[in-house]
Structure formats: C-alpha cells, structure tokens
C-alpha cells in the first residue's frame, strides 16, 4: 500500500474531514425539520458578506488564534492541553487586575502590560499540571480538566466575593478605566473606511497574527522548538540526545498556557472592558478543534480560527434569524473535532484506497 502524496495529506485530508462534518451537520439540521441551505445562507450572510459581520467573525477568530496556538505548542511536545479554558479565564483575571489597579497613561502601554499579565496568569495556571506531569507522572489531560473546573470555581469566588464593586448585583468587576480602551477596527485610521459601524474586533487581532509568526519561528527556527518537536516525536530519542524531559514539558506548557491566557486581551480588555463570569465562553475548547483542523501549523491555525470565527458568528445569526438553536455551533464544533481528530485515520484510509485505485488504473493502462 502506497502512502498518500504530501499535498493530499496536508490539504485533502482536512478538507474531506470538514466536508464529512458539514454533511452530518446538514443531516442534523434536516432531522430537526429545518432547511440546511437556508442555514448556510444565513450564516454566510451574517458573518462574511458585510463589514459588520466580518467585525464579529474576526473578533471570534482572534480568540481562537490564541487558544489554537496554545493547543498547537503543547501538541508538538506530545502533550494534550485541554485546559485552555481555565488558562484563558485566569488570563482574564490577570488582565482585569492589570487594567483595574495600575494607572495606565495610554492604551498602547496598557495593552503591553495586559498582554504580559494575561500570559503570566495563564502560564501560572498551566504550570501546576505541567509540574505534576513532569515530576509525578500525573496525566496532563485529567489534571488540566480538573484545573478548568477549579479555575471556574475560583473565578466565581473572585467575582462574587472579592472584585465585585459594592452595590452591584451581577458577578463582574467594575468597568475598566477609559484610558485602557483598545481601539476597535472601526476606530483605526484607514480601517474605519471599511468598518463604518462599531464592531468588537480590535487591535489584538494583530497581536494574534504576530503570535502565529512567533510560534512558527519558535517551533521551526529555534533550538527550543526543535527540542519540543523532538520530544513530542519520541521521548526516549530526545532523552538520549540530552534533552531534559522536565524542562521541555514545563516550557511547552508554560508557553501554551501563556498563549491561552493572552486571549483575554481580546475578549476581556478589547470587548467586555470588565471581567465577567465564564469569560472564555468555550474558546479554550474551540482551540482544540482549531489546532486539529489547522494540522498543528500556525498558518493552518490562523485559517482554522477564521473558519471557526465564521461558524461562531454564523451560529449566532442562526439563533437570531432561524428556528435552529444557537447550540448548532457546538454540534458542528464537536463534529469537526471528531472527524479531524479522532477519525482522521478513516479519512486517510479512504483516500489511500482511492489513490491506489487510480494508480492501479494507470499501471493497467501502461501495461496494455
């Protein structure tokens, strides 16, 4: 049995997985008595056919780029960081503390400070599971799941009992000061010609794109990146080459948690401008789908994040304009993870079989 050509493996496999997921999603829509064609029209109309829709799609995509890159870095070290959600929530706490209690003269300085604060809090939240994995062999998947729940309980406590201003009912912090307001795309010179009405997408989009470049350079152009990838491919080989497993697990998870925590500059600082309960709203988990769909490459992650931004915004439009509940996007998200992550062997076997049919056909012709 011949192997798949590289282009098919890189492009065709995710594409077919996506098509399979879309087909099942369409069947689900049919099964609940709605029209899949109407659904896709509404989704496209509301998310990419006008600047306003793009403003939301890009906003969601920004969050997913951060969490997708977070999962990617850990994946390359052979670690499945399922704790992006908790790390992003802690990142939100870091960003909120930084914005509320430090006197920032200008948003640009505040953004730099908040980026580091979010990353530090996210990395700290990833550090404990990383240490337990590296030193005591506790399975990182289970510990990071547990840390998601602990984070969410901790955040509820912080918001209800500590950070909530006196006299306010809902569990949230006070609004951030005006000085730390990040320019949204409609407030940036040049871009304001395209985005004429207020959109949530903001300057952090450019930080997310820059982080994609940084992650690419880190993984494929530095010694550390090489060590991370070598460790992820084969731990005994990496150990034999003098790479410290403890150091790699710690560093990969700190970077991963830091990226997840950084997400908070988009949703907490850029959009809500205060810390709310459940601030990450699932973006940490979508990072898993984004990384799988993007084949753990920063370019793929950016593209997959855009796709999921479209799904997220389109799904919200579905909830608004059709009888399809907004939960449809959770189903699609699950299906994409299932087909790209768990059933990729099925797709690959199918494709290999088809390719071999073609090859056999050509050989037979050549012989005749």
């Amino acid at each position: 049995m011949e192997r798949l050509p590289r282009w098919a493996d890189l492009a065709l496999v995710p594409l077919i997985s996506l098509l399979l997921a879309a087909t099942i999603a369409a069947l689900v829509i049919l099964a609940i008595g709605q029209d899949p064609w109407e659904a896709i029209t509404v989704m496209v109309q509301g998310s990419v056919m006008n600047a306003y829709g793009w403003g939301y799609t890009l906003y969601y995509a920004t969050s997913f780029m951060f969490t997708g890159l977070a999962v990617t870095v850990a994946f390359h070290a052979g670690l499945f960081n399922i704790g992006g959600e908790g790390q992003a929530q802690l990142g939100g706490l870091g960003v909120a503390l930084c914005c509320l209690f430090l006197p920032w003269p200008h948003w640009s300085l505040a953004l730099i400070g908040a980026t580091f604060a979010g990353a530090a809090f996210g990395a700290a939240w990833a550090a404990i599971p990383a240490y337990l994995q590296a030193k005591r062999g506790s399975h990182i998947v289970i510990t990071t799941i547990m840390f998601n729940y602990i984070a969410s309980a901790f955040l509820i406590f912080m918001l209800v009992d500590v950070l909530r201003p006196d006299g306010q009912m809902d569990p949230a912090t006070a609004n951030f000061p005006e000085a730390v307001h990040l320019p949204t795309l409609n407030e940036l010179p040049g871009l304001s010609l395209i985005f004429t009405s207020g959109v949530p997408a903001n300057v952090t989009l450019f930080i997310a794109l820059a982080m994609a470049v940084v992650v690419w350079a880190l993984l494929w152009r530095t010694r550390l990146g090489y060590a991370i990838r070598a460790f992820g491919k084969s731990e005994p080989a990496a150990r034999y080459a003098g790479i410290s497993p403890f150091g790699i697990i710690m560093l990969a998870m700190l970077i991963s948690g830091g990226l997840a925590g950084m997400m908070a500059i988009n949703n907490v600082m850029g959009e809500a401008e205060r810390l709310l309960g459940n601030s990450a709203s699932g973006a940490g988990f979508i990072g898993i789908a984004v990384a799988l769909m993007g084949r753990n490459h920063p370019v793929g992650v950016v593209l997959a994040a855009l796709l999921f931004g479209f799904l997220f915004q389109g799904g919200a439009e579905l909830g608004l304009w059709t009888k399809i509940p907004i939960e449809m996007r959770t189903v699609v998200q699950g299906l994409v993870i299932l087909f790209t992550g768990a059933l990729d062997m099925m797709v690959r076997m199918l494709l290999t079989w088809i390719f071999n049919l073609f090859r056999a056909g050509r050989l037979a012709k050549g012989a005749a």
Partner: protein
Amino acid sequence: MDYATLLQILDSTIRLATPLLFACLAGLYSERAGIFDIGLEGKMLMAAMSSASVAFLTGSVWAGLMAGILASMLMAGIHGIASITFRGNQLISGVALNFVASGITVLVAQRLFGQGGRTPPLEGEARFHPITLPFAEELQSVPILGPLYHEVISGHSLLVYVAVLTVPLTWWILFRTRFGLRLRAVGENPAAVDTAGISVKGLRFAAVAITGILCGLAGAYMATALQAGFGREMTAGRGYIALAALIFAKWRPVAALWACLLFGFFQALALRPDVVEAVVQVKIPVPFLDALPYVLTVLVLAGFVGKAIPPRAGGEPYVKER
C-alpha cells in the same frame, strides 16, 4: 448540627452519588479494557435527554430508561469505532462526543417540545418514584438506627439500589469470571490476549458497550428520578467528577463506591452552606466546596494520597499487524 440535619445530608449524599457511581463504574469497564473515555459526560447527557423525552411521550419511565440506554450505547459505539476500529485518539474522540452531545440534546429537545431545549416536567408513571423498604415505617421509632434506616437507606428510587448492587456485580465480573480476567488483560497487555487467540477488538467493544449501558442508567436516573425532566447541560460536569472518582478509587469497584459517596457528600454539602458554616464556624464560600472534588483528584493524581496507576495499555490503540 443535629441528627436530623445529618440524616438529610446523608440522604442527599446517596441521591447525588448515584449518577456518579453509575458513570464511574461505566468508566471502570472501559478503562480497564484499555479505552480511555472522557466522554462519560456526553453519554450521560444524551441518555438524560432521550429518557426524559421518551418517558414524556410514552408516559412510561421504562420506555424512557430503554431509550436512554440505547442513546448512550449509540454514543459509545461511535467512540468504539473511532478508537478501536480506526485507532483514533481516544481523548480527542471523547472531547468531540461531549461537544456533540451538549449541542444535539438541546436541538432535539427544542424540536420535540419547543420549550427552550428542555423537556416538559415528568409526572406519574413517567418518573421513578421513591420506594419504601420493608419495615421502614415500623422501625422508625428505634433510636438512632430507625431514622437512619427510614430516612437514608429507605425511600430512594429503584435505580439507586440498582447502582449499589452494580458494585458487587462489577467486582464479581471483573475478578471472578473468565470475561473479567480477559477484560483486565486486554487493558494491561493486549498483545498477550491476542496471542491467546482472543479478539482484542471484540473484548474492547464489549467493554465499551457496557460503558454505554451504565452511562445510560446514569443519565436516565438524572432525568427521571433525581429530577423530573431534562434541562440543558443538566449533568453539569458529573461525567468528569465520575472520572475523578475512578482515579481516586484506583480503578477498583468497591473503592469506586466510597469515592462516589465522598464526592456525593461534597455535592450535598455545597447545597447546604449554612450547615457547613455552623459546623466549622468559618464562612466557607460555596465555590470552594464545589471545587473540592477536583482539588482532591489532583492531589490523588499527584500521588499525595496513594499512587494511582492506570491500566498499562490505556489510551493506546492496539495494532495487530506488528
């Protein structure tokens, strides 16, 4: 705290521990056979929605129970195909199925009943009702033990007693039958099982099917006995707490019972912060009680409370041709 309050808390401990116990034993079969399953949550949710819907539509809780088990087994089947047949990543498959379940339960319930993704409240024959054990009324006047028997042991729905009986049954199956020996072997060393001429895939699918049945019972209990109907995300992380209990119990059935009772006790305490405050004399925020099972699990995983060693071949797909 007086005796009556204690009994109340123990009573709700048992109630809350039951879905955990079903799900925990479900995970035990799967993981003992070498298939990680973090999709317990999704299976419970599917079962809860299916059982509540069918029980409401047919008016029979038994039809609902069957539907719940079938729905959960369907999910288990997909997990089996992905992780056994196509040797996919078991963790990713579990995560994916949890998302699918979380969304699709709301879609279906909304389509069937149009009440914002919940089922209408179940009544009468569409629910499991508390059953009074023999002599519960007569013995109530016996000091201490009488009320304990009447309030805590008696007066639960049938499924609670089924869950407790599943514990010795599971112990017997795993440690006293040929199937159990093979099931444990396939989780430790599938190659040896294969060499003995026994189908690794067959055994693993059998284990995954049992997981489906037990998660079905867990979900059906949630929707038709603990509560009267399905609501979105009603399992609220119980699948993960069950997973935590499984690790805490080090993959052993009897220990699983104690672990689930302990975690059920925490959940019961979280419902009564007033009692906790009265006992420890310090105000403990409810989120801390909520987080306790998870913190405890991390401590267990870290090896501070005994070492938890998972089945050796857990999570690794078996490749026959090697």
